[in-house]
């Protein structure tokens, strides 16, 4: 795969193949972000598509000196917030139970050794559903998507120091949520 800057240039020129490549490259990430905001797999698919439409419309506004991932995450966050606002104004016909988080889809068969890893991933995903939206967003940006403090501060519009303290608090809250769902998760493994 060519470098991202070239792909983005081609996308801006209207090259459909480049756009398809970009969608394929980032769809898992965008879907993961959407899922953390809406906590429903079908709704997350719709939101992820909306995010890509938004990316397509706004590719012109992406400046070359920016890093693509924070830009993409900022756009995704804004789209998710708009989506949640619309949902609040016009609730969907079926109720979305935050308490009953859907199992994470596994598209590849896993060897037995990965069962524990899969179980932990599901546990963390469920525990994220118990967090406040502020703490969940902090975990999403920092721990899951791996943005640095400065990038998060820019996306959220808050000082770096505040990001740092919120990130600590969010991490502890998540660990406690995990323990509340499965007390055995706190037993150290050799």
């Amino acid at each position, binding site marked *: 795969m060519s470098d991202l800057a070239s792909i983005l240039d081609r996308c801006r020129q209207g090259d459909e193949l480049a756009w398809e490549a970009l969608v394929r490259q980032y769809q898992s*990430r965008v879907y993961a972000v959407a899922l953390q905001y809406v906590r429903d797999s079908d709704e997350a698919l719709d939101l992820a598509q909306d995010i890509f439409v938004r990316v*397509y419309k706004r590719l012109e506004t992406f400046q070359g000196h920016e890093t693509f991932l924070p830009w993409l995450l900022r756009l995704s966050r804004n789209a998710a917030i708009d989506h949640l606002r619309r949902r609040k104004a016009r609730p969907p016909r079926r109720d979305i139970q935050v308490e009953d988080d859907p199992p*994470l889809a596994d598209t590849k068969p896993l060897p037995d050794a990965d069962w524990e890893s899969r179980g932990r991933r599901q546990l963390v995903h469920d525990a994220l559903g118990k967090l406040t939206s502020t703490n969940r967003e902090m975990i999403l940006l920092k*721990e899951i998507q791996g943005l640095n403090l400065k990038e998060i501060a820019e996306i959220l519009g808050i000082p770096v120091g505040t990001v740092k303290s919120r990130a600590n608090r969010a991490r502890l809250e998540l660990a406690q949520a995990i323990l509340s769902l499965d*007390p055995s998760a*706190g037993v150290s493994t050799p």
Partner: protein
Amino acid sequence: MNDTTGKDRGMPDGMGEKLVSGVLARTSGSPCGRARELLGARADAPLEALDSALLSAHTAHCAACRSLAAVLAWMPQPLVELAEIDPGEAFTAATLRNMLPWRRRAARRLRHLGVEWAGLMRRPRIAWETAYVGAAIIGLLFASPSSPLRNVPGEALRVAQANPVQAFVEISRRQLPETLTTWGDAAWAASGGRAGTAARLWRDDLWDRLARGWQAGTPLTGDTGDLGAALWASEGDRIRDAIGRIKNDFGAIKTELTSAGARKNPHKQQDSSGERHDG
């Protein structure tokens, strides 16, 4: 500090723990808050040696903090794995398919815009509309009480009659470009785009070019400098034409307004032109 493990040396089972809890309860309170603060910070950067030792000593005795430390130790891996979740085979195709209607709409809008623009430019009234809006802008520019150019017209008109280029120079020195931009944008918003388009074109194509030249700092004198001569050579006809149209359109607007006023309020017209009322 030699021993931070706090072993209950020489005390019966559990007594040491009870003693520590009792003392802490009556003095500093539970140290778990501080321990959790360090546990959270440890995920970002290694702790100082002493903090690390104190934390280990605490977790050796506190089951709750020990569990928390264990979870915090394995938590980063599954979190990183959540960064990408495969939305399924059909997602790419569905996304690209859903983009099509939007792209078609955008292309259609662009085509319509082009057709509308071409139609607009073909209309016989476009020149008149351009001049009309230009005249309105100039009128507002000089007539508005808040206009910075309110005191200029007399002098400007006098100079304009003698030398139109000099007139533009004098006006531009009084921040004409900024004011024109404001009025041009206002016309754009007020007219819903169409008249504004004409105004903007007119402004961008003629006034801005002149203004940029003047603002570059080339001094223009009465007998005009090189820039003035060049501007006049390239734009003279258009300037003369624009001024001519403005002059004509002022007359047309005045006539139109007068006749519209007369149609709207014939009595007032009669009063104002007829006898004077007493009282």
